């Protein structure tokens, strides 16, 4: 537990150092107004990282979240075009996202197909479904109603609704993970599936719940994304699933399941978000973004694995000691 805590402390320190380095040359970057903007920009990544965290905790991975986001966002925009009121659109986006997540979850739970195969497949299917829905057409700002676009941008106490939603959901998610049986089940299933079964936790059902949760969050984010950027088309958030996994890995969520914290996931997302926002300020081409997040993933997993000895050798040593 102390290792976990120190890992988050190190990450927090890394973020502060990063901010300090940027601030030393571009003081305008760390003004409260700009930082609020960074938080708002990073909200989608934070929300998806939370869902992904639940999935990874249970030893699974969800590569379909970005496609899920894009599909739900497109459906939200289409519903808006039909004149459906905003609260219903929100419910529909979250509901659809949860259903898409449930499809992943059912395939993993009932058929026992590895999650990486399921979500590689559903990733292309969900994105293809957007094309089937629209024939490849775009929905642009002028085709969306004012209320639809205004909601995530409405400012309350200095922060847009989008950022407030992220903050609230982070708080709610932390409660869920730390204070509810389901949250504990995520850790139990990932930490030791066989022990979890003996304590009366259904592994498959818990994984299913994690996928539904990740899907619902992706659905909500889909609406927020489309409304904020005021455009919806087949390829929105393309490749975003890699950023989401990167945020989790950087945040110290163990890919083998069972370990990681909400604070870690949020800070992992913020770390990537700050880099993304700082690149144009510092004057580095945005084309560097992809390589930087790739390197960040590799450094983070290497760092997280540091101090953990090669499992094969450990087994041999134990065997030697026993004889």
């Amino acid at each position, binding site marked *: 537990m102390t290792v976990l805590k120190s890992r988050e402390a190190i990450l927090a320190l890394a973020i502060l150092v990063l901010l300090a380095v940027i601030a030393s040359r571009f003081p305008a970057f760390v003004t409260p107004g700009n930082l609020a903007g960074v938080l708002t920009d990073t909200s989608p990544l934070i929300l998806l990282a939370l869902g992904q965290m639940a999935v990874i905790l249970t030893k699974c991975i969800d590569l379909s979240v970005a496609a899920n986001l894009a599909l739900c966002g497109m459906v939200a925009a289409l519903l808006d075009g039909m004149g459906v009121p905003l609260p219903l659109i929100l419910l529909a986006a979250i509901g659809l996202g949860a259903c898409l997540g449930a499809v992943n979850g059912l395939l993993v739970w009932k058929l026992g197909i590895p999650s990486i195969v399921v979500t590689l497949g559903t990733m*292309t299917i969900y994105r293809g479904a957007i094309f089937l829905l629209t024939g490849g057409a775009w929905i642009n700002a002028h085709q969306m109603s004012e209320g639809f676009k205004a909601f995530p941008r409405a400012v309350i106490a200095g922060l847009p609704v989008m950022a407030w939603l992220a903050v609230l959901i982070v708080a709610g998610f932390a409660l869920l993970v730390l204070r509810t049986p389901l949250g504990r089940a995520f850790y139990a299933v990932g930490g030791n599936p066989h022990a979890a079964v003996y304590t009366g936790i259904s592994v498959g059902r818990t994984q299913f719940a994690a996928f539904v949760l990740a899907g619902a969050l992706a659905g909500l984010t889909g609406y927020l994304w489309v409304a904020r950027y005021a455009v919806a088309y087949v390829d929105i958030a393309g490749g975003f699933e890699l950023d989401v996994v990167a945020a989790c890995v950087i945040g110290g969520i163990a890919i083998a399941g069972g370990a990681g914290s909400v604070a870690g996931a949020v800070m992992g997302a913020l770390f990537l978000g700050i880099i993304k926002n700082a690149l144009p300020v510092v004057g580095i081409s945005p084309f560097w973004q992809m390589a930087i997040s790739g390197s960040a993933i590799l450094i983070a997993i290497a760092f997280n694995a540091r101090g953990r000895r090669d499992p094969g050798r450990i087994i041999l040593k134990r065997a030697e000691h026993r004889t």
Partner: protein
Amino acid sequence: MSDATTTSVPAASGRNIPDRLISPAARALKSWEMLLLIVAAAIFIANSLASPYFLDPWNLSDATFNFTEKAMIAFAMAMLIVAGDIDLSVGSAIALCSTVMGLAMAAGAGTPVLVLLGLGTGLACGAFNGLLVARFGLPSIVVTIGTMSLFRGISYIVLGDGAFTGYPASFAWFGQGYVFWVITVEMVIFTLAAIVFGVILHLTNFGRMVYAIGNNATAARFSGIRVDRIRFILFLLTGLMSGIAAICLTSRLGSTRPSIATGFELEVVTIVVLGGVSILGGSGSIPGVVIAALVMGLVTFGLGLLNVPGIVMSIIVGALLIGVIALPRLWSMLRRG
């Protein structure tokens, strides 16, 4: 409750012990490869009935480009997945190889240098993945998700939204040349790769070790197999095949963009899984992968003749990937009641 744990592993065999094994001939008839072969034949016949242009030899020859480059990587990927690892960075490795070749071409390098650089970059990508996975013991899924971003990211840094064009005419031979009549160079490379990988996996000690590692890496280590070294070699082979595929693809397209070969990893994994290789490792065969490549090629070519857009094809590929794994499991669930 115990169902929850057994779903992740194949159903335990040996619960009922048969009096005699089914004969080898019957077993071959009931095998996954035979089922695939029947599917391939059915698609072939359906295509030739659906379109009068299908049976033209030149058309069929063109159709092989749908799968040859992906299938080359699929052979190496099959061995990697049999050994219990996976490499999601193959598409990005192609982009990086192609970018390096483009840089060399812009600096005035000739075809032999371009080919060597393509192969070398592929090997370097494989070595990098292999080092992280086998030497430092990091999980292959995350490592290759990371390198997937890193390799293509380097291409984006080099190229931005630009492109390399103007490869030398002799370089075009790999992707556009013919060896004999309608037999393309890529088809020859594909066939050679199939034979080489088939021999390695099924007829050599190395191949047996790959299966041993996939079934139980710890037991393999105890029986004296250098598990880490073999996993490293498998990543190296996958990188090398990505390099060869990059040479063919770049030569065929005649240009390099950073978005080249996007989504290849999905199709390569689909071919491997469709070919009957267990995604959990430990079982599968190269002939299965060959037939699966043919099935994929026939399906995409047939759909192309019917004017189905690319993104709809990718839905079908995705559904195929899930379907081929889900259907046998559904079937056995229904039979058990």
